[in-house]
């Protein structure tokens, strides 16, 4: 049985990804700061903050004991803050970078160690169209995702010797709690900048992640796929 680690599985896209891979017969290890009500014989939840180094190391140790190796990692946990730069406190900047950048890095580092014996492992990180579209009001969020894209490209090279591919998916807006605060007019203007001007769905994201995880995708690494025709 293949094992996949997905971060941020309590709700939103992460939750749907966990359910999807459970239905596809994977062993799923998920995490989020709070407990999860997802119950399944092949699901294990870790209540932790992705930026807490000791907690992530401990999760990796437990996974190693239980499953000996990990085959895939999806770094989905992420937070955003929509705010003009002049009105953004440093505490928000730190929070966003801790979760998005430090969290993604820590999971890449610890899970890659468990992927060494997989023979063909996959890492999929999460970015956003806010970065290529240079969206006003999302400077810090987009900057944190730009860091993740850079991490993705460089880790693709550093980890290729271990037969691990590292790619990223960049969703357009999708109806989750993450974007609940965005005003309708702003959302409409944003959608109009996409080649295909509609809201994204979780299935659109699952499809892109599926593509990266496929066995046949072992020659695809360091790539970022944006949804909605954004480039």
């Amino acid at each position, binding site marked *: 049985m293949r094992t996949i680690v997905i971060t941020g599985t309590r709700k939103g896209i992460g939750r749907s990804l966990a359910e999807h891979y459970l239905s596809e017969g994977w062993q799923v290890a998920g995490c989020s700061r709070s407990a999860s009500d997802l119950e399944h014989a092949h699901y294990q939840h870790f209540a932790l903050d992705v930026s807490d180094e*000791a907690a992530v*190391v401990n999760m990796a*140790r437990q996974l*190693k004991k239980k499953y000996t190796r990990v085959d895939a990692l999806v770094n989905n946990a992420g937070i955003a803050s929509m705010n003009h730069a002049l009105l953004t406190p440093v505490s928000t900047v730190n929070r966003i970078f801790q979760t998005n950048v430090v969290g993604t890095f820590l999971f890449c580092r610890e899970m890659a*160690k468990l992927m*060494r014996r997989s023979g063909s492992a996959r890492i999929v990180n999460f970015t956003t169209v806010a970065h290529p579209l240079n969206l006003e009001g999302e400077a810090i969020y987009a900057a944190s995702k730009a860091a993740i894209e850079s991490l993705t490209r460089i880790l693709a090279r550093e980890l290729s*010797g*271990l037969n691990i591919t590292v790619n990223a998916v960049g969703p357009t807006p999708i109806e989750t709690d993450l974007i609940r605060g965005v005003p309708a007019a702003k959302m409409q203007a944003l959608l109009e900048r996409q080649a295909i001007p509609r809201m994204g769905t979780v299935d659109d994201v699952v499809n892109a992640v599926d593509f990266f995880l496929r066995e046949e995708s072992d020659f695809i690494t360091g790539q970022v796929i944006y949804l909605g025709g954004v480039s």
Partner: protein
Amino acid sequence: MPDRQAVETLILDSVKMLAEDFDLETLKQPTPELALYGEDGALDSMALVNLIADIEDALSERYALSIALADEKAMSAKNSPYRNVQSLTDAVMERLPA
């Protein structure tokens, strides 16, 4: 807490395991002084990364120790702790909790 001899044995075991995985003839019967990384070393950087991860793993499994060998101290040390089993043993001993 493991003593120096136990740590050295653990590292020698890790080197042997890696030598099998990577099929490195010269490292299959390692001695404490045999060059590992750097001048005359048989390990390339990918194999070294694997070895460090294996050693950290083994320390955690056998002794429940959480030790980071690739810390800032190791990166900036004048004499790399990754030269041979001896220097790696020193590095682990230095990092054992007091």
